[in-house]
């Protein structure tokens, strides 16, 4: 091997093989259309996979609700101030409550398959219609809270990680721990006392002002004013989690080889932090968002109750006290659909953030 290296003889055989392989793959990847088709197939597959999960949720839902003592007939009789045992039996018969559990389960699942969530006897409306009325408010609340939490958490984590152990890092970490440890209803009440009662800046609850605004812009302003406190209350808890996750991920990614490469190329520090560190540190944050979609809905129940926000959470809360099983199971099922949908979206987001993750 003492012959001098011959630079002109390149590209040699193995480079040519690499290139040939690369062109072979060309037909399989690239161009937009197959990508769109891949996303479509991914969605079809995931939605198909979601169906058995929803059936399981339905079964568990039904079984759990029927394990609880008491039934709807008893509630009706109780509200009416009492009745004879005969009348109670008659009521049970008319609602089909006298049939064996498994027949009622099969009936229930059959109705679900027809998108029939049943009738709410306490609100005297179909469950689907009730959910339809409330779902926008909850989506608005959870959506804006999630957006706020992601922005606050990721920005906070980013700033914390720039100087780990520095003053800003310690301050943000302390604030995050305090918020994380505070129950959200307590935080909500504190915010109401401060901003609605003492300062009188923001309304304490509801969706709109008591006197309905007449213009579109007035309605929007009123809606945003009402949204701010509940959204912040719900967002802060999650922001504190995202802050910790972002900070940890940033510090981990910062030590990786490709960050050193970027610095060796002389990229400005902020560009390195944003493009080479943050982008990759977002992956665990996205994972957490998917995992906590259910927790977010659960948190929304408390916040909706505290702020009299007319959403699904309060609907579920009312259904529990009315023993309105149809309504309650409808809301729970709706929550399950939302969690599944968020997780499908998170997986899509994942493959967009990290090209190594294939939708196959």
């Amino acid at each position: 091997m003492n012959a001098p290296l011959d630079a002109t003889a390149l590209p040699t055989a193995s480079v040519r093989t690499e290139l040939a392989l690369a062109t072979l793959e060309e037909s399989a990847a690239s161009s937009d259309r197959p990508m769109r088709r891949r996303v479509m197939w991914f969605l079809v597959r995931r939605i198909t996979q979601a169906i058995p999960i929803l059936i399981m949720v339905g079964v568990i839902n039904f079984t759990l609700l029927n394990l609880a003592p008491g039934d709807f007939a008893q509630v009706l009789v109780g509200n009416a101030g009492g009745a004879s045992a005969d009348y109670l039996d008659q009521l049970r018969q008319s609602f089909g409550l006298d049939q064996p559990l498994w027949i009622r389960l099969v009936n229930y699942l059959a109705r679900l398959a027809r998108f029939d969530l049943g009738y709410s006897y306490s609100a005297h409306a179909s469950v689907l219609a009730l959910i339809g009325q409330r779902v926008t408010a909850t989506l608005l609340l959870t959506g804006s809270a999630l957006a706020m939490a992601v922005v606050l958490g990721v920005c906070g984590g980013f700033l914390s990680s720039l100087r780990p152990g520095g003053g800003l890092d310690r301050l943000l970490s302390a604030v995050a721990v305090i918020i994380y440890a505070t129950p959200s209803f307590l935080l909500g009440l504190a915010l109401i006392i401060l901003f609605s009662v003492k300062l009188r800046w923001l309304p304490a609850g509801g969706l709109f002002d008591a006197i309905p605004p007449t213009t579109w812009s007035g309605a929007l302003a009123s809606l945003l004013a009402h949204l701010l406190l509940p959204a912040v209350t719900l967002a802060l808890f999650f922001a504190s989690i995202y802050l910790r996750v972002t900070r940890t991920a940033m510090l981990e990614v910062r030590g990786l080889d490709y960050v050193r490469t970027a610095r060796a190329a002389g990229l400005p520090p902020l560009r390195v932090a944003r493009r080479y560190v943050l982008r990759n540190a977002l992956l665990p944050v996205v994972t957490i968002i998917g995992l906590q979609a259910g927790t977010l809905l659960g948190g929304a129940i408390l916040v909706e109750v505290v702020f009299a926000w007319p959403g699904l959470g309060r609907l579920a809360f009312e259904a529990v006290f009315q023993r309105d099983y149809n309504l309650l199971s409808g809301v729970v099922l709706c929550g399950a659909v939302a969690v599944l949908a968020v997780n499908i979206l998170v997986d899509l987001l994942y493959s967009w953030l990290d090209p190594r993750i294939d939708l196959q």
Partner: protein
Amino acid sequence: MTATVLSVRNLRVAFRHGSARAEVVRGLDLEVLAGETLAVVGESGCGKSISALSLIGLLPETAQIVAGRIELLGRSLSGLPEREVRALRGDRISMVFQDPSAALNPTLTVGDHLIDAILAHRAVGRAAARAEAATLLEQVRLPSSARMLDEYPHRLSGGMRQRVMIAMAIANQPDVLIADEPTTALDATVQHEILALLRDIQDRNRMAVVLITHDLGLVARWADRVLVMYAGEGVEARSASAIPHSLLHPYSRALVEARPLRRAERGRRQILRELAGAPPLPGEHGRGCSFAPRCPLVRERCERESPQMLVAADGHVACHAVAERGINAEQAT
């Protein structure tokens, strides 16, 4: 007379841990001339990579330069604000790292990497930078197609990734390229191609290369000069033609003997001779020569007094035994 592009005088780098301090580079001198290749060799942990990182100002946070002077193109880097060091890094001096599989951002395309490297130092438009990225691909003999620019690193082979790394490093035609074991992570045939490519670029751009390696055979074939490092110090600085048989320092000779032999050479020496022991741990250097505990030529003076670099043959050697035997010692053995 060729100009000096990079010169290092008495460089000392230390790691801090609480109040403890461990020097890992202890008074390194080196000089690189325009267009030449200086090889830095030595076993693992002798301070090669840390010296290289300190040259481009990328030492880990726990390490710092405690003394010495680094001059790039006649300009001292010591005391220069980070912003100005950054302006030189990737522009006048750049670096290629060991493991190309982890050295590229998995979420960015090949083109993104190259365009970032170009835009870090020049105020050109994105489209112009992209066009230039394509010609960089051509220079490292990758297809200069739009498809290659839009490819993600995980879809490339190790050799192709290292080519992208080289393309990034030469994006602004630096005067000095530091290559830290650029081929260690690659298989043998790809190694050969990458080195040929580097050499070709070096000739074309008249770029100086600091090659950090374990491979003495590679040094003999490629480098102009060689610097042997031991325990954070340079112990022998010679012309690369001194390899393998004219090296003087007992450590350099031990490195040569520890090299696996090709069939043609086997007659001369039967076994692969291993150098017993390990280098001193950082912070545990004695007063004398750090190689003394492992040295076959050790004498009483070596334990007392650290040897200075003295002129010997076509370079410098730091060894009492060599100094005592005189410059022609190499012929005696």
